[in-house]
């Protein structure tokens, strides 16, 4: 069991490490700078691992430099999602009208057609990276809020919370000192899955042309490739490579969260 649980973690961490390195030290992977010009539409070669694009930039370099932006949007909006989700989830677990109000809010947001709403709102607000982060977070917190609410409600039935209440601790004290620490593993696994859905959402929006053009992410790259006729040039790698990167990054986070759940199960079994 232990051996089986470790393999995905190592794989996930390795992948994540690679992407983190590309984000923090892009120079490590590529000797070209971002705006270095070559002949347009060069095929795959040793000098240009993925060829060059319509403007003459090296695609692999573009990909490496896009990592930082993609990770940044994904992680930041996931952190915002986490804060929103945890807050609303805890408020939704209250008794009385506050709880009902926030619980209702959770159930309404579950139903909203997320992608279409995001497209409309992103156009209204204008698509800069900051707007995208806030908007994606504003429509992604539902899953976290539901998970947090369920966990808080379950904790409330536990004997140790009941004894705290009998000992006369205040509600704030119980919430901060006893409920919050127990939420940590729910929050951590929701954070990892949240990064995935945020990255997915961001690349879909950028693919549709709603990304921040000054800070290109992988989704923006595919959008450019599609618009500038990579199909007709046969530059399939230009269309596919950013998507594959999104996939690998999502898998990395998923594998780590898989290890977390496996660990939790072994603890509760043992």
């Amino acid at each position, binding site marked *: 069991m232990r051996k089986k649980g470790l393999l995905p973690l190592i794989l996930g961490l390795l992948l994540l490490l690679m992407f983190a390195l590309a984000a923090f030290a892009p120079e490590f992977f590529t000797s070209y700078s971002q705006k270095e010009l070559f002949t347009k539409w060069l095929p795959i070669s040793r000098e240009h691992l993925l060829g060059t694009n319509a403007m003459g930039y090296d695609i692999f370099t573009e990909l490496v430099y896009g990592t930082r932006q993609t990770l940044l949007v994904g992680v930041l909006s996931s952190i915002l999602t986490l804060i929103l989700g945890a807050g609303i989830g805890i408020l939704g677990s209250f008794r009385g009208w506050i709880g009902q109000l926030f619980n*209702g809010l959770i*159930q*309404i947001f*579950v*139903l*909203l*057609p*997320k*992608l*279409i*709403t995001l*497209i*409309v*709102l992103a*156009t*209204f*607000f204008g698509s800069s990276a900051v707007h995208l982060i806030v908007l994606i977070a504003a429509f992604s917190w539902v899953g976290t809020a539901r998970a947090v609410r369920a966990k808080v409600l379950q904790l409330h039935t536990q004997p140790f919370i009941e004894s705290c209440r009998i000992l006369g601790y205040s509600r704030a004290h119980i919430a901060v000192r006893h409920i919050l620490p127990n939420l940590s593993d729910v929050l951590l696994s929701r954070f990892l899955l949240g990064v*995935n859905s945020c990255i*997915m959402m961001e*690349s*879909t929006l950028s*693919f*549709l*042309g*709603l990304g921040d053009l000054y800070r290109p992410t992988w*989704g923006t790259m*595919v959008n450019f490739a*599609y618009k500038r006729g990579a*199909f007709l040039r*046969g530059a*399939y790698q230009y*269309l*596919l490579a950013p*998507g*594959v990167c*999104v*996939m690998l990054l*999502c*898998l990395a986070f*998923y594998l780590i969260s898989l290890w977390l759940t496996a660990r939790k199960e072994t603890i509760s079994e043992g």
Partner: protein
Amino acid sequence: MKDYRKNMQLALVCFLLVVVLNFFLPRLLPGNPVAYLTGFSEQDMTPAQVAFYEEALHLNKPLAAQFGFYLRSLLDGTLGYSYKKDAAVSALIGEKIGYTLQITVPAVLLSAGIGLLWGLRCGYKKDSLADRFSTTALIILNAVPTFLIGLGLMIVFCFQNRWLPYTGLNSPEAVRGTAGYVWDRALHLLLPVGTLTLAALPSRYLLVRNMAASASDGKDILYAKQRGLSDSVIRREYLLRSIAQPFLTMLGMSVSLCVGGSVVIEKIFSIGGMGSLLTEAVYTLDYPLMQGILFVTTCIMVLSILLTDFLCLLLDPKRRSEGKG
């Protein structure tokens, strides 16, 4: 019963929320609402034009009256007026929505059908080789963005091997109303529907598989096995029944997800459906059209939730016996 009624109420509240959001967004954002509601930039308009549009859009009336006019436009079915395209929003959407439904309806049904059958089989035989293999494969597929699936399929089927057409819904030489036309349409739909099915399949499969896996630990299943019932009977009569309701609810909620996914697919395969209309509206900043599309999508979502709730009601044995007694 109470649960279903609550779901319907929530769907209606959600609906109202979208209506209110649609109404207030252009009016509360910084900038002149005329610019948002017509889609023309303020600098390009003469004061006379601004005054004309203000009059036409009732922007000089109090907010409550404006809301009244907005509600009326929703009720009489015009959904507002797109000044960019010079047509009523409902007419624009009505022309295109059929194409979107031709992609989403088959994809929703196919992904649900395959996910249900395959998920039941693997969940029942959990931890077998087949289950491990297909679950891993679908977890990986779950991490693939929709556009990558679409582009990948297109490269393999349309560019490397010229098996299938890659753009639009019909070849230009096809004649309407013939068998060849239908066949041509089916060929054109194959890849878009396939992409959306593949994109929606993992979540269905994983849900069914996990529910079936935990249900197959139950004592009723053990008893059924002891009685010597065949695997297919157990799957159909025991497992399917126990997971039917949550599955249907999930299906109803995910219809709007597929409509969202079709925006991406219509862009990739250059299909002129509602999704392309939305992308076009985004590029031309045609705000009334965007809002109309958001409204229609919300309608589709509410309808699908009501439909699946109704089906759940029919399936619920408690409700059936109440009806009889």
